[in-house]
């Protein structure tokens, strides 16, 4: 294994030759935002948030698929990059129906986090309000296409780790959407092992566990009664 020395944001760092800029930066605690990268599955370079400037290259390069090279001089936080990143996030928000207030992952969402990171206080692009479907046919999980950003992390994790290849991308351009099986309801896809990897891989609330939304939660009266009894009558065991 050979070691390369390179500079990121004026900080001299070392990385092994096989590492990508993203990995090397992460090790050096330099955070480059990304939405489509997921450790353990292949990279697609699709979200364009991890683009960096490399001295000597006229094009911006995606850090997740660009390998380190000796003597590379990289900038990750130039004004141009910051502006482009914010625009990319705004485009994502404007493209889907991302209503944080009513989302299962509000407060725990990578899209929301990235929006904070890039300083998005509003979207300059008009919201498209597309009409999209919600698939609740699966016994355990749900797929809300309104919140999907097409990062394809579910597609890759299902194909590359679980080996089930339940998910894929259908259509193209702004009409693209994630399909289960051969565009069947998720619950009818025999290949699905219900492993839940896609739920964990999803950076937004698009793929979620059923029962996690507020309106689905059921009150367990007995728990409440137990607590009350425990406090008032010191009965700590059920």
């Amino acid at each position, binding site marked *: 294994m050979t070691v390369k020395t390179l500079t990121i944001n004026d900080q001299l760092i070392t990385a092994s030759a096989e590492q990508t800029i993203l990995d090397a930066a992460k090790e050096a605690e330099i955070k480059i935002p990304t939405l489509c990268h997921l450790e353990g599955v292949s990279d697609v*370079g699709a979200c364009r948030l991890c683009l960096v400037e490399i001295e000597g290259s006229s094009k*911006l390069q995606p850090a997740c*698929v660009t390998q380190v090279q000796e003597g590379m001089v990289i900038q990750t936080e130039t004004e141009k990059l910051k502006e*482009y990143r914010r625009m990319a996030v705004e485009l994502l928000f404007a493209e889907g129906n991302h209503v944080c207030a009513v989302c299962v992952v509000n407060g725990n969402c990578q899209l929301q986090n990235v929006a904070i990171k890039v300083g998005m206080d509003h979207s300059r692009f008009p919201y498209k309000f597309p009409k999209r479907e919600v698939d609740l046919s699966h016994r355990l999980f749900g797929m809300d296409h309104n919140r999907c950003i097409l990062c394809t992390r579910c597609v890759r994790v299902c194909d590359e780790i679980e080996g089930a290849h339940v998910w894929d*991308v259908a259509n193209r*351009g702004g009409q693209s959407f994630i399909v289960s099986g051969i565009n069947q309801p998720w619950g009818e896809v025999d290949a699905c092992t219900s492993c839940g990897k896609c739920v964990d891989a999803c950076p937004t609330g698009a793929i979620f566990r059923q029962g996690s939304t507020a309106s689905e939660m059921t009150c367990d009266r007995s728990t409440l009664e137990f607590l009350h009894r425990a406090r008032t009558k010191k009965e700590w065991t059920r």
Partner: protein
Amino acid sequence: MDLEELLEIKETTQAKHQKKRKRVRCCTAAGCLSSGAKAVIDNLNTEVKHQNLTEEIEVTSVGCLRLCSQGPLIEIDPDDTLYQQVKPEQVVAIIDSLNGQQNRENLPQKTDLTHPFFAYQQPIVLENSGKIDPESIDDYISKGGYQQLRHVLLEMTPNDVTQEVTKSGLRGRGGGGYPTGVKWATVAKMPGQQKYVICNADEGDPGAFMDRAVLESDPHRVLEGMAIAAYAVGANHSYIYIRAEYPLAIKRLEKAIQQAKRYGLMGSQIFESPFDFKIDIRVGAGAFVCGEETALIASVEGKRGTPRPRPPYPAESGLWGDPTLINNVETYANIVPIIREGGDWYASIGTENSKGTKVFALTGNVENNGLIEVPMGTSIRKIVEEIGGGVPNQGTVKAVQTGGPSGGCIPAHLLDTPVEYDSLQKLGTIMGSGGMIVMDQDTSMVEIARFYMDFCQEESCGKCVPCRAGTVQLYDLLTKLIERKANQQDLDKLEALCQMVKDTSLCGLGMTAPNPVLSTLQYFREEYITLLQST
């Protein structure tokens, strides 16, 4: 197959044509077929049979005769007469004239072959187009076909071939303009037993039909060029990726491959050399993005046709991870003449950095719509005003669009620019694959920009955010402008988003999608300003 057999076919075929007193060549490329060429040919055949003239007059289907707007076209040998807008009912008069009886008023109009449309052209890629029957390998051989393949296989090393192509200065005709010789040398130098050659025939720019015409008119030339390329880079398996919207080209390619196989010009030990070669056709399913090389490769592999980040380039890791040479139809079509006449000869045509000729599909508000091949460096003015005959009805040229959705508009005052890779790039457009659309004084440039943006948002594969979501917003902003609802802020936003989509998209489609907007903004900004809301 050996040289003797090849020469024998050549002579017999030539003799067969010469034996006839007259030869009527009917264009059966897509353009003429769509304007009714089939009925003309049927009538010609019936009439010749009816008058018992089959021994004297040969009616044959050929490829593109180039002046597409005046189709159906037929040309008569040895008279050098080209008839335009031939109607089926004029066939009798044509046959009569071949028999020396002049029946002028019933004859179709003769085309002036000394007109600049023909006189200024220099057919190299199209040298056989309209001359030979594209469905006859014998016809191709009669024009010296497959001799260069033999020459290369038996008398040149792969390195010699690459050198010759490098010497020619040929650059990729698909639009990028990457030096072909360098590309070949890169693939040739890559280690590995298995390599591939791919022909990109996924021509999809609106208004472009160069590759289609080449494939419909002279398919064997492309096959021979590919075989030579495969020999040069050390590949023995190749694919032609062609769009399903070109059924005639597909049919003719399939037939050509069959014929070549039958003659042993494809298969194993071609010309008794150790070189094996086969070509498979892959038909695209209607996605413009599959013209992008990495998306094309994914599609050939049977995957969803979406691009992937480069590097690695296909030359290093292409089809199934193996080194792959991928060139466009016209690039391969240039190979045979380069080998035949030499790289130096080819390099003597054109300009310093753009060698040889370029085929253009000349369309739009121009008198002579059709297919033209001119030396690089020809001025756009010469192409539009002389070859094209200018705008019909005394109109004036406002702009010329080149490079399709990835290109831009050249304003009238820059028409003296020569067509070259670099000069066009300086103007903010690209050579592209060869679509050239003339726009007259009444054209709204903002509408044009929106038309291309509509195309790009429709054809985006949806993989990367800027191209998928950015083009949609750009289209909306342009619509807002056209509906006179936009203000200065929207215009600023349009420009900023263009820059963002250009700089951050994953593949060429996205990176160049804003070009039609940027170039019209550069030259016709006042049209955008006029559309702004007064407030």
